């Protein structure tokens, strides 16, 4: 406990730095994914291409991506920006698919009703389809947020400091509590952000309150979505 009480400032500072490194890719990833997801949802050809590329990017191990990216972008391997770009790529890889699925989950009847009432496609998208797709998009965003926060720690291997600093520093100094603090704080941060996203989602999207459905039905939906 000694280490922790002596280093509370460090832990707090790293947590804030960690949050900063995670929030930028989460927000950027979402903003980039909306148009990409729309294109994937709207046109079948681009859907195949986009989702295949997303799947492949998602496959690349994080440490390898952090190394390969600078060779393409010219940015230093050891910079914050490099980590942020890598994490944004992962975020888009998950989120674009999620946005496409979310838009496809909107009831076609509602869409037709909006068109029949004379909504332009731009207005229909922002006032009808996007809000109704919100709950499914939020589910994707929560996955992105949690995995991004966990992934930030890998940055320490290329010198980008976050809570991951506690891993390597604690390991080198053989302070178990330091490594443990890093792991626990990363998880706490991820779970807090996840919880906040869920709460905010419920506030701004009152139509997303859960309806009753049997677990079997939900499971069946899960399965078919994967296939």
């Amino acid at each position, binding site marked *: 406990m000694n280490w922790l009480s002596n280093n509370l400032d460090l832990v707090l500072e790293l947590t804030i730095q960690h949050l900063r490194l995670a929030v930028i890719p989460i927000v950027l990833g979402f903003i980039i994914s909306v148009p990409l997801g729309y294109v994937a949802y709207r046109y079948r050809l681009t859907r195949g291409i986009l989702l295949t590329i997303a799947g492949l990017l998602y496959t690349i191990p994080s440490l390898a991506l952090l190394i390969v990216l600078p060779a393409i972008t010219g940015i230093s391997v050891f910079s914050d920006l490099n980590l942020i770009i890598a994490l944004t790529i992962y975020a888009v890889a998950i989120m674009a698919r999620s946005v496409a699925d979310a838009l496809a989950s909107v009831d076609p009847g509602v869409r037709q009703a909006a068109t029949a009432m004379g909504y332009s496609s731009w207005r229909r998208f922002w006032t009808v389809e996007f809000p109704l797709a919100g709950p499914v998009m939020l589910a994707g965003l929560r996955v992105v947020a949690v995995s991004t926060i966990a992934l930030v720690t890998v940055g320490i291997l290329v010198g980008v400091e976050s809570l991951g600093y506690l891993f390597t520093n604690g390991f080198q100094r053989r302070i178990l509590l330091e490594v443990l603090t890093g792991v626990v704080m990363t998880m706490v941060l991820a779970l807090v952000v996840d919880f906040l996203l869920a709460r905010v989602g419920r506030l701004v999207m009152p139509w997303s309150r859960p309806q009753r459905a049997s677990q079997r039905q*939900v499971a069946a939906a899960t399965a078919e979505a994967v296939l």
Partner: protein
Amino acid sequence: MNLFLDAFLWLFSPDRLAGANAIPVRLGEHLFFTFFAFLIASAIAVPVGFLIGHTGKGREIAVAVSGAARALPSFGLILLLVMIIGVLQIAPAVTIALVLLAIPSILAGAYSGLEAVDRRTIDAARAVGMTEWQILTKVEIPLGLPLLISGMRSGMLQIVATATLAAYVGLGGLGYDILQGIAIRRYDQTLGGALVVVILALLLDTIFGILEHLVVPRGVRLGRTAGSGEKRTGRGSSRRPGVDGPEQAATASASLVGSGPS
């Protein structure tokens, strides 16, 4: 592109085939730990997943476990386990970390595969007099196999990626060249090592992708071709009677994404 050229020159230099740090040796180490951990993880997660899927019990726990696992920083877990189990026991410690990280995806694949089977199909199997064991082995498992393989695919990728990080604790593997290159500021070595990891991951992903298609039972495949017009109508359509509100779809898409990139 010059950097890639340097990396390729490093990668294809004859030195890469000699000594303890030869690429084939590192690849061998990497694959050994990957497959070993994958086998153990499967041996644990598949039976448990089938049990959850068949009985419907314990699903909440499994969902909670996979949710929490997504938040677990894999690199931190490795270091933590190495420190707890002992610095002299690196291989077992890393293997345990890899197994722990792969279990949630495989488990999710196993139980969601079984749960996805149409209730009427199972009722029909029961009605024609199949025993519970027959229903499990002849109906549920074959129909749930594609989803299981899909879960195994994410589990495998999680292991491959995390095994790269294990070089930090001195286990070798393909991460060795990446970290060594960073330490001695040889970007060609780092990039060369990273490219091998990328190729390995893409290769394994492709193999599992093909496998996923191969295990679809013949009857299901025929049915799918016949009903393909209906299937194309989209995800929110009548094809999925279970999904009648955004929340269900949200839950669905949240749980289908494995444990995230690693």
